[in-house]
């Protein structure tokens, strides 16, 4: 414990060789890989959006379509992104053995997620009065990308439902919770994709 000012010294050979990652179950890796491939799919779609946008005429959206109004999407974002909170509660909770937190967290996430989808349906109804996927490429991109994301939210809700049933049947405890963990990972991924969509499709045209 000297007064050596260089408190940070180089890592030793042993520290560098410590094994990271280690100890992850096969199901965890399976979900990581699945998320990776789905994320790449969204990246391809969003890249296509930007590619087509910058090929186009200076006004975007084209064809007289107004730039997307932000109030409803911002509410939707708040609801979806906050739903990650109870999911974390559920995931951490069962790891500490609290079945109650698991059930509560899952139920709250489900309600918030379902509300998001309901609001998205309402948004579609209003948008469809102004343009459809067949109007022009902007319409095609908007509905395809948000629709694809919506399908992922739906799948997430089904996963949560499945895990909720198992939770109520008492399948999970401190040592057994892999499905909760992988469902949580998927759910957070779906939220992260929404952030990208929000920035690219909704906020982007206003910049």
């Amino acid at each position, binding site marked *: 414990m000297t007064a050596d000012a260089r408190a940070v010294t180089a890592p030793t050979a042993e520290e560098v060789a410590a094994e*990271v990652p280690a100890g992850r179950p096969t199901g965890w890796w399976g979900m990581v890989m699945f998320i990776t*491939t789905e994320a790449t799919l969204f990246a391809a779609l969003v890249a296509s959006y930007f*590619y087509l946008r910058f090929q186009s005429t200076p006004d975007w959206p084209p064809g007289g379509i107004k730039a997307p109004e932000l109030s409803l999407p911002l509410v939707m974002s708040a609801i979806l992104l906050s739903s990650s909170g109870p999911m974390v509660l559920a995931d951490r909770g069962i790891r500490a053995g609290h079945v109650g937190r698991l059930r509560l967290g899952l139920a709250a996430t489900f309600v918030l997620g379902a509300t998001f989808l309901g609001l998205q349906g309402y948004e579609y109804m209003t948008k469809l009065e102004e343009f459809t996927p*067949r109007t022009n490429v902007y319409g095609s*991109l908007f509905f*395809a990308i948000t629709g694809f994301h919506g399908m992922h939210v739906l799948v997430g809700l089904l996963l949560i439902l499945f895990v909720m049933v198992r939770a109520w049947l008492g399948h999970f405890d401190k040592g057994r919770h892999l499905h909760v963990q992988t469902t949580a990972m998927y759910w957070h991924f779906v939220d992260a994709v929404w952030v990208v969509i929000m920035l690219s499709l909704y906020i982007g045209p206003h910049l």
Partner: protein
Amino acid sequence: MTTVAERTQRLDESWGEAPGLGSWFTTVDHKKIGRRYIWTASVFFAMAGFEALALRTQLARPDQTLIGPGAYNQLFTMHGTTMIFLFATPMLFGFGNYFVPLMLGARDMAFPRLNAFGYWVFLFAGLLMNASFLFGQAPNGGWFNYVPLTGPQYTPKVNIGFYTVGLLFLGISTTAGAINFIVTTFKLRAPGMSLNRIPLFVWAILATAFAVVFALPALNADNAMLLLDRKFGFHFFDPAGGGDPVLWQHLFWLFGHPDVYIIVLPALGIVSAIVPVFSRRPMVGYFWLVLANVATAVISFGVWVHHMFAVGLPQLSMSFFSAASLVITIPGGIQIFSWVATMLRGRLVLATPMLFVLGFLISFVAGGLTGVMFAVVPFDQQVTDSYFVVAHFHYVLFGGAVFPILAALYYWMPKITGRLLSERLGRLSFWLIFGGFNLLFFPMHVSGLLGMPRRVYTFLPGLGWEGWNLASSVGAYVVALGFLASLVNLLWSLRRGEPAGDDPWGGDSLEWATSSPPPPYNFATVPVVHSAYPLWEDRFRERLDAARGSEERQLAGDHEVLRTSELDAEPERAIEMPSETVVPLVVALGFLVAFAGLLAGWYLVAALGVPVVLGGLAAWAWPRRQEPAR
């Protein structure tokens, strides 16, 4: 405390699958699934081969009318599509399925049911795409399916629907398989098999699997957008609606170029498995081969615009891709040098597998050389869409994939069937195929430089192309004879071949440590490795046999597999694997109904597939019994 006999019996009981037809639909054994991939891919290879023979027969002479332009378009499209999507990758994944767990010292893949599911989807998607012939509506826009030709305006009929829907369906299988390979390689290696001791074939499959995870989504996005344009009037590729046909090309080649490495890397991995064994020494430059495999897979994502050098893109952006296209040849070359050095410094054994490896080396290097020529933009723009391109990619694909696959068949069939193949028939087959292959494809370099465009159903006399085309067509038939010889060899060996024994070649990797064919549980005892060439370690077999005495090493609980750590393969715990089940087949059928309904426009039918899939997945995920704590 159980005895060795009791534990062996438990292994037999918990891993054995019921004989008979039922088990055919419910198996989750990676060896059975691997064999199925190999068989089914071979059938698709034969179909695509006959399509090629038809093409070459039509082109044998100028101005022939055996096959009209419409049929010709379908034939060359399906030849390419079938070879790439239904033969090459599934065949190599079949070898991967069979041998990756064995080489890792594991008893199965990480996700056995996902494995079975992947096979069924492959079979159904392949059948769906080829069913198009029954309607005379096979895909006809070329294997890379450019818009606007394949868009709703210029191909209104369902031909392209078979292409888009078929590939979207097939992509599920390829991705599932890739994820399975990755997780198996990360978690199920034998203790002691740290990263730097993983067999080179497994490294190749791992790099390929990662490439699949990142490449398939681009193809899926492309096909989904085309489907939406064609069936539902979207405008992604429609300039009148603000879309851009060039977007199809970008997304396609963003998938397509990595795809050629997805095909070639596992094949190069097979070569890396064979060369040390038939040179009787460890590989020179193991490290460099690992680097080359991984670097090639990564860089392959940065070269795709070299398929678009004639599209009119800005020079500066093309230069990024030209840079990567030139640099990617470096790891490719490293692999060649490693193999050649190993062969020169070893004692070469010229059995049939090695003959096919030599055939591969010559053809693949030749194809690689013309490939480097294409990386130079001005040259590319002169020969684009000519037969020079056809020559190049057949040298790298036939040379780089088919020869190694034949080598693998001769090398690994004895392990799979327990019987040796005939060396004489093998040599005959090799020379017919190698000679015929060069006669078939070499002249195309010349006819291409003389200006013959690709994908033409006939050509005029007097352009100087006749002789070269005739030679190619003769070569095609010689190649076909060569394959016939190998088929005869295989059938003969199944009936009359000499028993192979555990290790007919004196191999270095773990598949040779067990019987031929292996028992359902692969290894009675969990192997422990101390190098990258376990079977060449001192007294490896004695140590493995001696470990029978240990209950831990025999791992005879219910259908158990040992999970180890990702980087250093330190033992973690035993995990229980699922046994036979019909659920993967049911889910695959659900998907088939959904995709077929979508293709036909029967949306109600398609919707019926959805609850089948969801229900099946729920049954799949439901715990078989109370899971042990993690």
